[in-house]
């Protein structure tokens, strides 16, 4: 099936099998391997990408469902520029170890902080509970998200 979508600001026209998930489409057809798969049934959140502003599971979304949508993956957060304030905060707080869950957590938190830059720790944890990180114990991730709020409050989209 033919679909057309915008990924990280660039238009993409593709011919995909109906059963292809958005995550597989991004990884294999578009070479955007920053999006990872770790359970393929919507539990771990590693494949989270942003579709029209909302954080969604790339493994539970069919590529054809994203026809006409605007998709942001981890590669699109900073683009070729400097790391975003959220990414910088992750580094400062050691909010990642093996890095496998990181893409899905960054996209989840980016969508959350864009929507609500005043979000409190308990809500960050609530939203983050849809992502599994096996390395960090989550504590530094929450600290990084709290610190990054200031940049989102200053307005605009700190990821662009």
């Amino acid at each position: 099936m033919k679909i057309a979508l915008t990924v990280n600001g660039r238009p993409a026209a593709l011919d995909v099998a109906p059963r292809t998930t958005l995550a597989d489409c991004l990884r294999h057809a578009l070479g955007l391997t920053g999006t990872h798969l770790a359970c393929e049934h919507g539990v771990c959140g590693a494949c989270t990408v942003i579709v029209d502003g909302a954080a969604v599971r790339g493994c539970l979304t069919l590529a054809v469902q994203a026809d006409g949508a605007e998709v942001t993956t981890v590669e699109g957060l900073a683009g070729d520029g400097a790391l975003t304030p959220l990414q910088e905060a992750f580094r400062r707080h050691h909010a990642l170890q093996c890095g496998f869950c990181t893409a899905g957590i960054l996209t989840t938190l980016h969508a959350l902080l864009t929507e609500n830059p005043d979000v409190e720790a308990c809500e960050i944890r609530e939203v983050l509970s849809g992502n599994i990180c096996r390395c960090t114990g989550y504590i530094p991730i929450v600290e990084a998200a709290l610190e990054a709020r200031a940049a989102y409050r200053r307005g605009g989209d700190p990821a662009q």
Partner: protein
Amino acid sequence: MNTPNTYIGGHVERVEDARFLRGAGRYIDDVTREGMLHACVVRSAVAHGRLVSIDAEEALAMPGVHAVLTAADVTGEIPTIPFRRPNPKIGPYAQPVIARERVRYFGEPVALVLADSPELAEDAAELVLPEIEPLPAVVTRDAALAAEPLLFPGTTEDNLAAVFTAGKGDAEAAFAGAALVVGDSFSTQRQTALPLETRGLLAEWDADAQHLTVHGAAKLPFFNRRAMAKMMDLPETSVDYVEHDVGGGFGARGEFYPEDFLVALAARITGRPVKWVEDRREHFAAIAHSREAEAQVELALDASGRILGLRGEMFMNVGAYVRPNGMTPVRNCAQFMSGPYRVPNIALQATAYVANKTPAGTFRGPGRYEGSFFIERLLDMAAARLGLDRRTIRQVNLLTNAEMPYPLAQIRPSDGSRAETSCDSGEYSEAFHRCLQAFDWEEKEKLDGRLIDGRYHGIAVSCFIEGGASGPAETARIQVAGDGGVEVYVGSSAIGQGLETVMAQIAADTLGLPMECIRIYHGSTTYLAEGWGSYGSRATVMGGNAVREAALALLARFRALAARRLGVGEAEVSVVGGQAVGPDGAVLDLADLAAEGLAGEAKFLNSDATYTNGTAAVHVAVDPETGRVEVLDYVVCDEVGRIVNALTLHGQVTGAAVQGFGSVFGEELPYDDDGALLVGTLADYLVPLATDYPRVRCLSLESYPSPTNPLGAKGAGEGGIIPVGGAVANAVASALRAFGVAPNHLPLSPARVWALLNPPD
């Protein structure tokens, strides 16, 4: 200019983060090759049975399916996977790389489908029909010990893979003279390490060069290369294991598994690159399990609470085969149960039995987590009986630096250099006091055992040691590139722990250069002739010291070359900050001499373990209506000899503690009576989530550098998980003291805690 020791000890941000944060990491599923085939493993759905036939006709008829490999495609004997710690008894229990006549666990590989895409391979695997005549499954300890049936009839006479003893002093005499003997039965449940990235491999066979390359290495590529070369009947130099980014290890990932051989065989047979990426469901049945242990142990004490002796027996269900590292948790549990305490007399026996379950291996703190749970429970039970404060009974038994080196129990049969080992350094009461101070024990003790707002509060303290620096050696080579950059090659592997940063810190400090000049290459057999890897909390100590020695060798070479170039004596040249300065002020940079082969190599040899020690304190609240336990505070303090990177050290300790909570409360791999694994997804294997354990605090000390190595570092990647079981169970016992419960069996799921409070009539 940088002065020496600028980086070691700091909160140095990680160099690998830049690529991970941009989504530019390269994990095994991101590696592709032109024309590659995709593999899917067909696994036994029967735990124990005779493999009669495999019908692959329908699968082979599917367009896009290239082959279905079975045991019939293996020439000669089916190879078995070698052991990391060989011992006389385990030989017959080695795992064959594919089942031929008999399957012994749910998930055992019986065939490999090769197709044009992973989806097609999966579809075709559904059509491969193994005919298996079921045999009675051995699931429990009783069935295994009764040898009904035998898993290896005709080869072995029982289902016991090994019996280890850990001994020291005269335990019988100690128990005979004791003021108090406490004992009980304990158990820890089967679980798995669960790295978030599942396993994966990509094998390439170059028929012209007769060379095999296996991508997807982790943990110990050099051991696996040796194993593969032997199985493939190739010289070692004809096999390479290549490491890419690795999404977590925790002990289970990177060992030699059946798929290593099968994927390589497929590449060799088809002549095309073959890739296999495990899905999560098969991960649960295929990757090593760990921790299924039962113990009946006793502690002998004098009236003041001093430990006189420790004795008893343990039984570990190691699954259907003995995997490379299958004996490590078994022998560790026996050898390290005494933990950080002065235990002069020990007689422990640990029996590893086989059963029709996934074969076991290691998970962070293997055997140590189990043993710590057992002895910490015994200490609290003894304190209650003697009327002692739970702090006092630990304090009087913690080792002092004056006693170092302090010998631990000896393991028999001997399984290598660590059969005899000694704690290296440390005043163990220091971390104990610092932990309790940060925890504010006196204040929290006022809540201990009290019912507040419908929940019972409890606190506990637990002490531990963590063995590190697995021997015997690690290698490193450093060379200066033409652009003046310094290339560091190290045999250690990166499994997500921040290896590149730590090695760059050590190299930069030793060379007196900024970290930006350093490029770290690790984990692949292509970089060095020999190497070891990352396991047993060894990389910082073994790899770090190898890098340090290689850097010193490079500096010596730099001085010599500079002296020759300047026409002066070596003693007249001063080397600082990556520059050689002659007596007349002439300056040479590293880059100036790069063309003359500016390099240094080292093999750091050390078979002495390091022992980080530490203490954890926990405050819980137990809801008697639901059995749910909330962790209100958790403080862990460890003494690590020398901190190389405070940021990554704290990351390891915190992450390990939270993994420990997963172990204590939720993670479990249950089987039914027929040996079918009842967990297949992350929705039913309950790892900790962000909402579960928000309060963990850690602090680290570096008061007693390890005398075993020039850096003075002690391995510290696993300690965080070791004390969690004992600490939490004791806190629950303390909270529920009014009910006299004994939380001696993990996990402490809400259902189990509720059942402790509501025993059947």
